[in-house]
């Protein structure tokens, strides 16, 4: 059991939890993930390490309530425990040698993009953070990003926060304006990463993306997280989660990511009903 040291809502659907997991905290690096089971009969889900404190022995996770498991996880309070917290898994994001980087985050993907931006900032790189959300209520980590970025561009679909438009609009504007990036690191919904990569391919800017597919064990055992990169099958859990975005088959990844959608929706409704009954 792993204790929830602190917990806060970042917006109505996104929660941050700080978990006491000293072994994981000791080794965790930006870009890696953990497998979490909220309860002892729960599903195993991968969540990216959002931050870590080696001295306190804690690791932060940020998750969006999208299904039954994240709903259940969100019902846990400060002082409660999650049943399992395994990691750090996957490879850390490669940042060595990078001097100027555009970090693009979309929605809850910003939780993963932030530690990468922070690491780049700490190594002295120029960091331009471009983050996008549907609307102002969903904006997360604004201050955190500003603290580690030389430039911070906030975009929203409806114009209620920052500029109206997509992250690709902002990125295009910066590149057209003469910004030369060693690399673009894009983390967010698969569809966003796909369009960021389409754009950067035109400009010939290397782009690294972070995949967050369906996983069970997270150690290379099940192959559920496989995707096609450069025509070859890779396992996101052990070969990634970061990949060269220009080589990834995003359409396949989107379809694989949605393979249990129907089931998940049903389970989500069931879980919500169960909890609301308990409250009554």
């Amino acid at each position, binding site marked *: 059991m792993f204790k929830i040291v602190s917990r806060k809502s970042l917006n109505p659907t996104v929660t941050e939890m700080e978990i006491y997991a000293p072994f994981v905290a000791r080794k965790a690096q930006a870009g890696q993930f953990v497998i979490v089971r909220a309860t002892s*009969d729960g599903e195993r889900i991968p969540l990216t390490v959002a931050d870590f404190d080696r001295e306190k022995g804690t690791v932060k996770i940020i998750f969006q309530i999208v299904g039954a498991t994240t709903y259940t996880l969100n019902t846990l309070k400060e002082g409660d425990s999650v049943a399992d917290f395994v990691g750090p898994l996957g490879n850390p994001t490669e940042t060595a040698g990078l001097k100027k980087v555009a970090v693009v985050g979309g929605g809850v993907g910003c939780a993963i993009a932030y530690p990468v931006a922070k690491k780049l900032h700490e190594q002295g790189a120029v960091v331009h953070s471009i983050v996008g959300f549907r609307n102002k209520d969903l904006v997360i980590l604004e201050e955190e990003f500003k603290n580690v970025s030389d430039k911070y561009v906030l975009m929203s679909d409806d114009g209620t926060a920052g500029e109206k438009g997509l992250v690709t609009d902002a990125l295009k504007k910066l590149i057209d304006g003469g910004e030369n990036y060693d690399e673009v690191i894009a983390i967010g919904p698969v569809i966003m990463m796909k369009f960021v990569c389409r754009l950067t391919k035109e400009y010939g800017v290397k782009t690294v993306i972070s995949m967050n597919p369906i996983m*069970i064990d997270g*150690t290379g*055992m099940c192959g559920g997280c496989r995707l096609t990169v450069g025509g070859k099958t890779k396992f996101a859990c052990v070969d990634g989660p970061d990949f060269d975005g220009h080589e990834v088959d995003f359409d396949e990844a989107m379809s694989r990511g949605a393979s249990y959608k129907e089931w*998940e929706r049903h389970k989500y409704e069931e879980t919500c009903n169960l909890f609301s009954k308990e409250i009554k």
Partner: protein
Amino acid sequence: MPNMSLKKNPMPVQSAEERNKNFKEVALGYTEADALSEAERCLHCKNKPCVSGCPVMVNIPEFIAKVKEKDYEGAYEIIAETSSLPAVCGRVCPQETQCEKHCIRGIKGEPVGIGRLERFVADYHNAHCDKPVVKPVSNGKKVAVIGSGPAGLTCAGDLAKKGYEVTVFEALHLAGGVLSYGIPEFRLPKTIVAKEIESLGKLGVKVETDMVIGKVLSINELIREYGFKAVFVGSGAGLPKFMNIPGENLNGVYSANEFLTRINLMKAYKDESSTPIKHGKKVVVVGGGNVAMDAARCAKRLGADVHIVYRRTLNELPARKEEVEHAMEEGITFTLLTNPVKINGDDKRWVNSVTCVKMQLSEPDASGRARPVVIPDSEFDIEADVVIMALGTSPNPLIKSTTDGLEVNNHGGIITDENGKTSVTAVYAGGDAVTGAATVILAMGAGKTAAKAIDEFLNKQ
């Protein structure tokens, strides 16, 4: 007078029609009368050929003699002297190619049902024994075991009995390795696995779950920083193989590992499980090993019409005969001399069929089995909404890639000497991590050998 019946006492089973709709154990186990009658078939040969067929050298005639005397606890104690997982072995060992293969009674008629008797004794013990286990006196030396599958558990048990302080590190949230995530409930009930692990706990073995060694801690750190005097690597062969044919990443295509893990570890066959699984209507399982049989029989129980597609004939099927027979009885179709070349999907990227070619057997290949060759222009499609690839597994590279100087062969298997000693001092290995995918009992044998070698190594220090 010995029982001279040429046939084994049959194993009571759930009927095929009933069991192919539930996940309860297929074989129900001998009654006491069955066991006594079967025990009487043992002739107690002086040279004990059966024992030489057992990878852990269970003293078979002696335990059977105790069964004859109705001293079942005594029988258990004899088995437990050499086997740490009797209730598991009695169920999943391929006895027909091991102990029973060498049984004199097998020359004319069927061999003694050694596996069935072992299971009877172990189940009797688990149901009746309340004798507290005496924890051995500690010798103060710490040994780390990586992986809680059959190799790791055996090594841990043997070392604990000798007084070592053993910690087993398991990557998943539940101990047991393949016994928990791989072998289905209907062949090996998980309560039995839990019971065997619990009894190791009573010997003082600590199990740390959620610990992916190679990631959270390296072997080097276990030795240098945490005071482990030796390490046994029993991390198994976890990496699933695929065929690298078009369409393998379509929705509805699973590795057998994923399919079985969802079902066995995550209980996806139960409605209340929070882990989903696709309930196929027409399932194609590719492969002919025990894992293929397990996956096919699970898919059947989820309500599918199941085809096993295998490129050789029934004679070459690597699965245990009993498993193949059970699968056939349960209504699984064997499509033999057939090999998939392409998996086809609909516009939503879900599998809808598998394109296969017909094969014929040619001269034997390096494995000694007849080599299948493609019959030209023999392509045909099999309808399928789920495809399960059961083509074998290879060792996980995580330990190798994080342990300096650890040598592996070109299949990724850790290289050891005959005692399990690796190229790194104080590091031993055994089971599938060394051999590639094999059987539970061979892994146990390797764990046992390594435990002995570790004991000798640490005694010299």
